[in-house]
């Protein structure tokens, strides 16, 4: 270190890698976050891709970003604003202006900040920083030319050499954060194991970047993030869609059932179909069908035939599946429907995130059609949520709608590999377990849970007919008898309500005697939790109740919601959970905080608004 460089020890820091779609920013960000996780930091990441497949080079619409938040204590979100930005071109700088903290460090490649580059990003002067009014610390390095010089010995063509410039930038960031390079080198070896020259070139660029940082006497801060003592075990980096896929596999394994996924590609849920269709070694039947309706209908068929069946989709697809969900409701067949929510209505904003499908999940069907609705809180929680979805579906013979969102689906963090033995058992309610004195019929129920017994084609002695027509409570034959319909409607609702006895209670985090209870659900957990902690640091008494189980509500929900003087329900819609809770909890009148921008909450903004509420 030079004497000009001061070392700052931080609890957490946000780094954003940004460049053209082809600049390899996703790889750079992934390596840096994994490196940090291995060193014992908490991480949370979020990729930000352009919607266009290949936007023009250097243009504003072609900027691809990857943000990582790392720290020595629990990290809940990918962070509001960046402490460090790597901007590989002027477009990347311009697009990220609003994502920067004051005095942030900005690393730029001066070779791609020439007149023509500035023009492509629609700058009108030759000083982009001044033009944007930025007060930042700039590390300006001729990255492209240094990479070309440094790699001359490898005899690569110009294009291949220039492609290594992301590793030079990574090296520079590693210097900034005092990250040893060995693990990064190891990852590059693995990544390019079939192309040894490319591997060597990338490692050389990485090392050159690191050494450059060391040698330039840059008058910027370098950071040290203390490592945290984490629980021992094996870890991996995982995003929400992958965790959802693994949760389904785990549930099927625990239940002793085959896993079937019927699906149709839709952003941002497609990864689930892709992940599960690659899992043939585990015997998973994950198949792409002709449309959303076929996706769910094949799953319903597979469920009838005895599989743990699921379908994956996003909001528009959920709309198409409504009628079929109703069939699974009345036929009382187990089914997991995963809705990775995105911006709506209609096609809306397919790559952006919001929580606007809650009402659709709860009520978006004809008839009185109750289902279980649960929501995942974090990318890694998608595993547990999918596991619970599978468990409740087969134990209670019902469709379960699992809500995640685009933010959870693509966001990732370090995940401690689960010990499946520690997860609750999953015991399908099979007709072979029928013990009542009356002869078995398809709609005969367990008197305690009101769950009907699952008989699967191929079982001797249980041949039966079910379907979308109302059935008689006792004989299971078709019935339009008025009292019977009333009874069946009530029974289907009661069956769902009783599930409250089998799910965890609502947890309250924070101060027991809080002056404000923050209420949320689903993918906003990280932001709400961080907001609560920040307010506590500011001396406020706050608590957070975050719903994972929404239908039915946990048994203690009413008690929790009515205990605090002030309650605010914060969600990325116009108040869907708040309205639902009001309909379920008498005299519940919460404040509402609603933002529908397709973007994650901003923690500082939450703190500001909640503090105002508290002081009002």
């Amino acid at each position: 270190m030079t004497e000009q460089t001061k070392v700052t020890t931080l609890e957490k820091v946000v780094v954003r890698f940004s460049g053209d779609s082809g600049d390899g920013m996703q790889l750079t960000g992934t390596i840096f976050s994994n490196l940090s996780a291995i060193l014992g930091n908490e991480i949370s990441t979020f990729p930000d891709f352009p919607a266009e497949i290949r936007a023009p080079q250097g243009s504003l619409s072609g900027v691809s970003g990857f943000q990582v938040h790392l720290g020595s204590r629990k990290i809940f979100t990918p962070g509001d604003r960046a402490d460090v930005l790597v901007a590989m071109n002027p477009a990347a700088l311009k697009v990220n202006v609003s994502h920067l903290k004051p005095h942030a460090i900005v690393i730029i490649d001066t070779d791609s900040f020439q007149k023509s580059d500035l023009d492509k990003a629609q700058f009108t002067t030759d000083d982009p920083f001044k033009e944007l009014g930025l007060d930042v610390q700039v590390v300006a390095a001729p990255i492209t030319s240094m990479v070309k010089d440094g790699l001359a010995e490898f005899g690569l063509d110009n294009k291949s050499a220039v492609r290594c410039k992301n590793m030079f930038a990574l090296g520079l960031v590693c210097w900034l954060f005092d990250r040893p390079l060995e693990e990064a080198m190891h990852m590059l070896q693995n990544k390019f194991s079939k192309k040894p020259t490319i591997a060597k070139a990338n490692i050389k660029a990485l090392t050159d970047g690191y050494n450059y940082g060391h040698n330039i006497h840059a008058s910027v801060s370098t950071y040290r993030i203390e490592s945290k003592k984490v629980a021992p075990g094996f870890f991996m980096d995982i995003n929400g869609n992958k965790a959802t896929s693994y949760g389904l596999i785990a549930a099927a394994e625990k239940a002793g059932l085959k896993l079937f996924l019927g699906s149709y590609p839709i952003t941002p849920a497609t990864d689930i179909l892709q992940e599960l269709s690659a899992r043939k070694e585990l015997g998973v039947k994950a198949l792409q069908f002709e449309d959303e309706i076929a996706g769910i209908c094949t799953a319903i068929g597979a469920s009838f035939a005895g599989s743990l069946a699921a379908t994956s989709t996003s909001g528009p697809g959920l709309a198409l599946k409504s009628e079929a969900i109703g069939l699974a409701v009345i036929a009382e067949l187990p089914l997991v429907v995963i809705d990775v929510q995105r911006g709506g209505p209609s096609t809306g904003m397919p790559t952006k995130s919001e929580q606007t499908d809650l009402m659709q999940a709860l009520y978006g069907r004809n008839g009185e059609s109750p289902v279980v609705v649960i929501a995942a809180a974090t990318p890694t929680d998608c595993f547990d949520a999918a596991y619970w979805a599978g468990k409740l579906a087969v134990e209670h013979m019902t469709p379960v709608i699992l809500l995640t969102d685009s933010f959870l689906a693509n966001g990732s963090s370090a995940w401690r590999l689960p010990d499946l033995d520690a997860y609750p058992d999953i015991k399908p309610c099979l007709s072979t377990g029928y013990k009542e004195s009356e002869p078995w019929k398809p709609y005969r129920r367990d008197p305690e849970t009101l769950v009907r017994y699952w008989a699967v084609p191929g079982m001797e002695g249980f041949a039966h007919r079910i379907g979308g027509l109302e059935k008689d409570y006792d004989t299971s034959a078709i019935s339009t008898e008025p009292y019977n319909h009333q009874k069946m409607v009530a029974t289907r609702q009661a069956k769902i309500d009783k599930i409250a006895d089998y799910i965890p209670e609502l947890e309250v985090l924070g101060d027991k005697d809080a002056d404000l209870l923050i209420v949320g659900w689903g993918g906003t957990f990280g932001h709400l939790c961080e907001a609560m902690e920040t307010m506590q640091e500011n001396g406020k008494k706050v608590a957070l109740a975050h719903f994972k189980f929404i239908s039915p509500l946990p048994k203690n929900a009413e008690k929790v919601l009515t205990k605090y003087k002030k309650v605010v329900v914060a969600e990325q819609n116009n108040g869907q959970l708040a309205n639902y809770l009001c309909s379920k909890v008498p005299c519940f009148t919460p404040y509402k905080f609603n933002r529908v921008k397709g973007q994650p909450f901003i923690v500082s903004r939450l703190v500001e608004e909640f503090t105002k509420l508290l002081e009002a």
Partner: protein
Amino acid sequence: MEQAIKYQAKDYKSDQYVRWCPGCGDHAVLNCIHKAMADEGINPKDIAVISGIGCSSRLPYYMNSYGFHTIHGRGAAIATGVKTANPALNVWLMTGDGDCLAIGGNHFIHAVRRNVDLNIVLFNNKIYGLTKGQYSPTTDKGFVTKSSPYGTVEEPFIPAELAFGSRGNFFARGIDVDLKNTTEILTAASRHKGASVIEVLVNCVIFNDGIHKKITDKEYRADRTVFLRHGEKMLFGKDNEKGLVLDGFKLKTVTIGQDGYTLDDILVHDAHTEDLTLHMMLGLMGGDMPVALGIIRDVEAPCYDLEVEKQIAEVQAKKPIRKLHDLLMSGEVWEVK
């Protein structure tokens, strides 16, 4: 071991009262299905009968097997799920011209294209019965119904053409009034590995009475239909005095002994040839030509449900991992001690 048990038609009948209108063609087809299943000797516990919505889709309730009466048009997709999840089952789809070809058209063409091993019985009465008399995708152009009071202005589907266009490998056509032959083709369909489409021309006694009369009535049937059997000559008429020949690229009816045609000139039906050309021409016959009944096409091809399992077996032969934990440990993991 199951072959040892002799089943009878009654073993496939459920205790439910059959609610179709008296005189409806569906009764006869139901009896043919019971008979075909008994002939095949399949244990009822291994049969799954799936249906959509419509008069014919009530059929699963009248079967003593596993049955699932689903939603309008989606039967083909649900049956695909059943069969793919458990290829050991004998899976039937009961559907009508509205259910299968209008609202369910997409699922139908894709189930046929994928060659899922389903027996798809298409009850074609050219009308919507359960909603009381609206035109369907097979209603003849110009036909007056409750929703086309001045006649339809659209061309109908010909199910055979649609099945062939979807790359179907089995297509047969039967009529409700011919129990013997309809049972025969249903049995063959059950035996065929792959998607079998069996179009049964049925009468709707209430809303479309006599729609197939010109074909099905005893007095016309011999002259206006030709029953095809693989390996046999395409003969028809009361005394099999007429037959089909190729005239250039077209089919033509001839009378044996007239215009110099002899029995040797009559075409022999080859249901097993992959070439679709003649099957398509036979399937499209009507008007001046006799309507083709029987099995028009019956070609073996890989079945989707088995291909799915085959691929899993192939991957499993190469990858020893069977548990999620082992899969996770084989990826990029790091240990914290």
